[in-house]
């Protein structure tokens, strides 16, 4: 599984990354977390940051999903 965190590196993106890591820990799943900070790469996928992409699918953009919400996507 591959989780991408899209955002230019502001506190919100870090919060999102932390939530994703917590969700992984709690569900005991293994996944590669990739941070995408290049703006031209980000805008190919989404317009609003921060965004989370799991296995190529945009799950949330422009907000920070809670740990519980991310856990549902990991299943």
């Amino acid at each position, binding site marked *: 599984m591959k989780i991408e965190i899209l*955002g*230019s*590196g502001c506190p919100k993106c870090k919060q999102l990354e932390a939530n994703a890591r917590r969700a992984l820990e709690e569900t005991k799943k293994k996944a590669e977390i990739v941070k995408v900070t290049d703006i*031209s790469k*980000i*805008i190919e996928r989404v*317009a*609003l*940051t921060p965004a989370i992409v799991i296995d190529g699918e945009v799950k949330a953009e422009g907000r920070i999903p809670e740990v519980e919400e991310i856990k549902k996507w990991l299943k």
Partner: protein
Amino acid sequence: MKLKRVHFGILLIIILLGSLVCYEWYSAFKKSELIQQGIYPKEPFPISPETPSWQIPFYTLLSYGEKAWFCLLIAFLVAGAFQTFIPKELVIKHLGKRNPKAYFIAAFGGPLLSVCSCSIIPLFAAIKKRGAGLGPAITFLLATPAINPAAIILTFSLISWQFAIGRIILALSAAIITGVILEAIWWTEEEKVGALSQLKIEYQERPLNLKEDLKEWFKNVLDFVKKILPLVLLGIFIIGIIKIFLTTEVISTYLGQGLAQTAFASIMGVVIYTPTLVEIPFIRELLILGMGTGPALAFLLTGPALSLPSMLGVSRVIKWKIVLSYATIMWILGIIGGLIFAYFVPQIF
């Protein structure tokens, strides 16, 4: 029929704004009544020529705390409500197509989004490349920080309603005009249709879930307070320090009413980096010391729209030439805006 989330949000915002207006009117009314009876309400933290200079920054901070706590509270509540209840998708959906309407959506919708400063540049790039194009993207970039809801509320409470309205009208028109001019100048060069898909965002209406939504609102408000309030307090304290060195003569020479002064103030807005909301107490103090209304509005027009950090950030996405040309146009429009405003509102305090 179930109450929709958006509608609830709009209702909430109207109630908050209404209570602020009532509060301001009530205190103005009470004050004028006291003055009629010959009672002049005393400032709890008066700053006079006898005040020792080390006390001035503290007194400035305290007197703002006393004056502004209510409107700051409302400003944060409203900003949080915008972020929670106004769906961003609704605005961005309309920025996906190249048409004249996109300029208006960018100008009016941008400020409604209340996105954080680090999200503005990716969104700008997305509107330019995948959506409405360079012109509306520039309009969005310039309008969004200049007229965010919290800044307008604070301008209304701390300076005056004329400034709040002048700021909205002139900032919106300046942003639209700059966007249109840039699109006309750089159109051919930037008109490269890439393989990128069109900007498309689906908008799903969400029903109101009162408990969850209020919780989210509260969280967003707290986020704003944590992020912005320390900067505002620090900013006001620094203004208090600067005040020690400024005299009425200096201000009225360099920042009084006039063309050169307006041009100077509008450059000052770019060079002096003031964090969000701090520009308002700063301008208020300068107005009290004799700054002209024209230069003051020019500063409020260019300051938030054209800070050096934001221009550096944008230059990663578009060419420096384009950045410089929008900055120049915005500067000229800032001067014109200031002069127009000075014509209509020559005196304030």
